[in-house]
């Protein structure tokens, strides 16, 4: 149970190198390769020669069709998974395993069903034996994600959007430097989704955090990201990195629409090419 089974089958590979502007990146991914060996012995290349530098305070969106290795990339950054070749480092040190300084928000269903909302949020503090000193912060974080009144509710008693807010609060309570978000809004309706996006932006602005968001939603990628990393499958690699410069975050502005068109074209073209392989 402890050993991760390498049965994940994802598609594929690498990308152009991102050029950073001088100051040392917070997260540095260089020449990373990750293969998965299936039960039948077949080898799938989830990531091939991926290079990406992420600076402190950035909000990166990673987008691409399913099987392009975007979740694998996020797992490598968190330390839940390790690359076969290449290196993923955080603040100059190689990432050896998960650490609460890199918070992780799963797609859905990652809350402990036997714990209440507040117990879920306090989980990390308790696991690290520092619950006593930071007890008051639980209520504070419940307030931050707007869940007052639901402290004693169990996960199955709250909505999907609220559950994701709990997951975010649970990751944030340990003051992570990076928040890794793996399609956290994938299973939500569009209203809840928009609400959660704005909440994330607020948190990002307020705490000057670094966030890396994996998504399959183009609007979401543009709306939230400073940079959008486009990935392509088989093998998973970074196709292009598009910097987003919006005068203001407005879903219907001309700028937004232009970016949308640009990304859609790129993604569509990419999918088409993959099919022709």
């Amino acid at each position, binding site marked *: *149970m*402890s*050993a*991760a089974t390498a049965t994940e089958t994802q598609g594929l590979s690498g990308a152009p190198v991102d050029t950073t502007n001088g100051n040392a990146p917070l997260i540095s991914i260089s020449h990373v390769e990750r293969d998965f060996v299936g039960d039948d012995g077949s080898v799938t290349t989830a990531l091939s020669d991926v290079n990406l530098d992420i600076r402190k305070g950035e909000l990166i969106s990673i987008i691409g069709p399913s099987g392009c290795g975007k979740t694998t990339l996020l797992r490598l950054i*968190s330390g*839940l998974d390790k690359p076969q070749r290449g290196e993923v480092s955080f603040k100059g040190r190689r990432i050896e*395993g*998960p*650490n*609460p300084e*890199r*918070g*992780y928000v*799963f797609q859905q*269903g*990652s809350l*402990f*069903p*036997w*714990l*209440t909302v507040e117990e879920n949020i306090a*989980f*990390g503090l*308790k*696991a*690290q034996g520092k619950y006593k000193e930071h007890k008051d912060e639980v209520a504070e974080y419940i307030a931050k994600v707007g869940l007052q009144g639901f402290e004693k509710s*169990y996960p*199955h*008693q709250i909505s999907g959007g609220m559950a994701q807010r709990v997951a975010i609060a*649970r*990751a944030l309570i*340990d003051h992570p430097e990076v928040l890794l978000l793996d399609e956290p809004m994938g299973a939500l309706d569009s209203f809840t989704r928009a609400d959660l996006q704005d909440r994330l932006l607020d948190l990002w602005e307020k705490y000057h955090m670094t966030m890396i968001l994996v998504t399959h939603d183009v609007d979401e990628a543009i709306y939230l990201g400073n940079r959008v990393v486009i990935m392509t499958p088989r093998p998973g690699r970074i196709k292009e990195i598009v910097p987003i410069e919006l005068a203001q975050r407005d879903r219907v502005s001309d700028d937004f629409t232009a970016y949308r068109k640009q990304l859609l074209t790129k993604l569509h073209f990419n999918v088409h090419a993959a099919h022709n392989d």
Partner: protein
Amino acid sequence: MSSITAEAVGQPISASRLDARDAQQGTAQSESTALKSGSVGASATPYEAGSAKVARTVPYPIVVAFSVVGFVIAAIVNVVFPQIAPVQFKQGQIWIFLLNGQEAYLFLLAALVVLYVIIGAVDARDPVSAGRYRYRAQFRFAMGLLLALWDVTGTKLQVLPQPFFPGPAQVLEPFVTDGNYIALNTFYSVRLFAAGFVSGVVLGVVTGVLIGWFARAYYWVFPLLKITGVIPAVAWMPFALTLMPTPFIAAVFLLLICSWFPVAFLTAQGIQSTPKMLVEASRTLGAHTPYILFHVAIPNAMPSIFTGIGMANSLSFLTLVISEMMGQPGGLGYYIDQAKEWSAYNEILAAIVVMAILFSLIMKLVELIRGRVLRWQKGLVK
């Protein structure tokens, strides 16, 4: 003795008075049946759509009368029909009262009538418990009728072959004549059960956690569990009785192995079914492996563990009685075995009644603990 007889004789009088109410009840019943199809109103009480909705139309005092009238009928039947089979009642003592089985039975029926009337009066105070009382009325009535039927078809009319079907009064008699001895044997059974079952469950959870969590334990212990676990524990009895220092320890050992297997098996399954995502989430939150085992894997296995405990519970009852019937110096199984020698079928049934009550209570207790531990599941599962 005399005071009790007076009370017992007094019973039919009050019974006939209540019986008059029963006639009204009949009308109310047919009325409610007629209403059954029509009543649609939204029922807010937890006590069940169908019957509660119907019963609501019946005045509450009639519901109370209806609840107890079955027992009154049972008392009348007991007094009116003569015993045809050769039945002799022995006198015994309860506290300061001297009485025989016959009197004890009538006394019990009277007590039930009084009890349900009092409960009815108390429950009338709030609508929820009143609804519950209404819901149970039909069943209580049927219980009384069943007692009457049992009484009349047994030693009275001899429809059921004798002496295998002693009447309710005869089954009650051993509690009066032999009460202390039954209590002693019950205590013996409880002690044995507690020792064997609890140690079996504890050992089962420990084994299951080890097997479910550690690949090495799985490799070495699981095959052993699979092979030995399917053997009914009582098959080991000859070894247990010869190898263990006392018969009590031998029986504890049998109970232990019979409850160990299902608990270990289902605990292991529960641990192994821990979602990978929850383990990974814990790791990103800074939990180390032992913490994940105790705070993620084991809580995740809890529903499964309780399924195992439920199975172990039933298996333990079986093993308990069988091992007591073979080579124990006491216990309800031993009591049955002794009664069998004398063909005292009423005593056998008396012991069975005690078992029914005792085992139900134990299961209820396990159920309460389960409900408490798994309270997070409320509303999540049916």
